[in-house]
């Protein structure tokens, strides 16, 4: 789709104008089909698109569009504003404790960017004068612990690891270690897992029960398609997810998963990953995401 949404709607409405008649509600409904296509092309999940289009549909057949000289701009503005409204809101900052270490648990599907993002958060928190402790609780993936240790060395942030025990044990011991060594943020990097893997999802529940994290962040790859709804729903059902981090936004995926995940979990997108280097973490801006999704 090389034409922007505004362009394609513009040519649609101008064809009607060229026929010399006024824009009607039916015309607007037809224009909305173009919007629906754009959202699906952008990987927003179908059930989310349906709900979203119902909301937009009501506003779109209002006077603003029908009476406008440039109906396509009015329509796109309504859609854009609705996207911003849906994706924004909620506590977009990390909730850091004043007493005792703040425990942040990272979770998500395989390869979504958890380990890299955990290190990015440590980098960010260290720059703010905090004393983070990185915890290598992925005992599954070959060299996962080594990966976090290398990143910790690059940042001059300590990494806690322990062999011969279960991931929940590593996490519990790490929190104790943080208290003993005066580290005030504990970042738990966990192994990637499928939301349908009951044993591994139970393992996450155990980590949560035994360490009571203040933040549980779901790390989602920005290029994920319709499956975003399935996985986000399941993680959110089994854990008190407090926020989402969308990664690899330096790619060219439209990122409709952002809307899907926000819609099904109701949890705020707190950060976005925009590169492989450890300083490539930014705050989430709903208006930028809305523009990107609409292509």
């Amino acid at each position, binding site marked *: 789709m090389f034409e922007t949404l505004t362009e394609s709607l513009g040519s649609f409405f101008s064809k009607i104008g060229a026929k010399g008649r006024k824009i009607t509600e039916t015309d607007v409904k037809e224009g909305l089909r173009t919007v629906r296509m754009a959202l699906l092309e952008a990987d927003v999940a179908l059930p989310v698109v349906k709900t979203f289009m119902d909301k937009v549909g009501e506003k779109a057949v209002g006077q603003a569009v029908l009476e406008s000289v440039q109906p396509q701009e009015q329509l796109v503005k309504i859609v854009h504003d609705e996207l911003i409204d849906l994706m924004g809101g909620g506590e977009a900052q990390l909730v850091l404790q004043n007493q005792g270490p703040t425990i942040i648990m990272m979770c998500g599907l395989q390869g979504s960017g958890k380990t890299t993002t955990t290190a990015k958060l440590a980098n960010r928190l260290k720059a703010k004068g905090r004393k983070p402790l990185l915890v290598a609780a992925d005992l599954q993936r070959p*060299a996962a612990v080594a990966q976090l240790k290398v990143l910790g060395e690059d940042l001059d942030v300590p990494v806690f690891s322990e062999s011969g025990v279960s991931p929940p044990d590593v996490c519990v011991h790490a929190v104790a270690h943080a208290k003993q060594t005066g580290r005030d943020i504990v970042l738990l990097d966990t192994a990637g897992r499928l939301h349908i893997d009951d044993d591994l999802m139970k393992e996450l529940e155990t980590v949560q029960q035994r360490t009571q994290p203040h933040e549980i962040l779901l790390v989602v790859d920005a290029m994920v398609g319709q499956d975003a709804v399935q996985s986000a729903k399941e993680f959110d059902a089994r854990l008190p997810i407090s926020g989402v981090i969308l990664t*690899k936004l330096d790619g060219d*995926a439209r990122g409709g998963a952002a809307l899907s995940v926000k819609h099904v979990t109701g949890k705020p997108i707190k950060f976005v990953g925009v590169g492989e280097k450890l300083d490539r973490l930014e705050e989430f801006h709903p208006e930028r995401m809305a523009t990107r999704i609409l292509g």
Partner: protein
Amino acid sequence: LLVGRKLGEAECDELRATLIGADLGPRLAEDLVDKAQGAFKDRAIESADQIAQFLKAEVKKQFPPQDSAPRFADEAPTVILIVGVNGSGKTTTTAKLAHFYKQQGQKVLLAAADTFRAAAVEQLTLWSERVGVEIVKGQQGAKPDSVAYTACEKALAQKFDLLLIDTAGRLHNKKNLMDELEKITRVIKKKVPSGPHEVLLVLDGTTGQNAVRQAEVFTGGAGVTGLVITKLDGTAKGGAVLAMRSEVEVPVKWIGLGEQMTDLKPFDADSFLDAIFG
């Protein structure tokens, strides 16, 4: 239900939801719904429950079995280059392929050409030990193309049947990284002029429509000869592979179904399409 010789709206909506939900994308989903309508009108199908079989047969034509066959060199070593975006499963797939071919009695060599990411070389080294194959890795700070070159030298000198080169994840919109891949290919050709014999694009099965873009750019820039679709042991259906057919013709060669070295299967169009169309 079935109104005259026309599929009802409920049937069409359900079909559309299934296809979009599988990541076929809205355009292809619409085309297929139209096809089903057409077949119904022409009496090629008689009832709604024949739609799945009909569409499956239609789409299956795009996946002739001979296309999925792996490519080998006329004389050893066969060089396979593993490429794809970050986190798609390249390193794990490299290990799976090493295991697969070792089981078939081939002498397999691995090359750890991801010299960039933290512990990437360690990760593939651990896999080489588990699978029981040799590995070539560079010095600290080595360039990926020099690792590939050294690996080709060893493969030739020590008569390996197969060389698998794992590369760093890279987003296709990063020109310098795509240029690096072209450089690796050129360097391979210096030692093995007919190589790489296979360039496998590893695609995460949960990817949406961006997979189309990935396939286009990697095919244009790195001469991709086949796809590996990973993580299909999850709930994603990998339907973006069908969406990309309109833009680029790359055969699917392998499916990744888990995190162990045995979790790799040669692509089978029937089971892949069964999962999508139901």
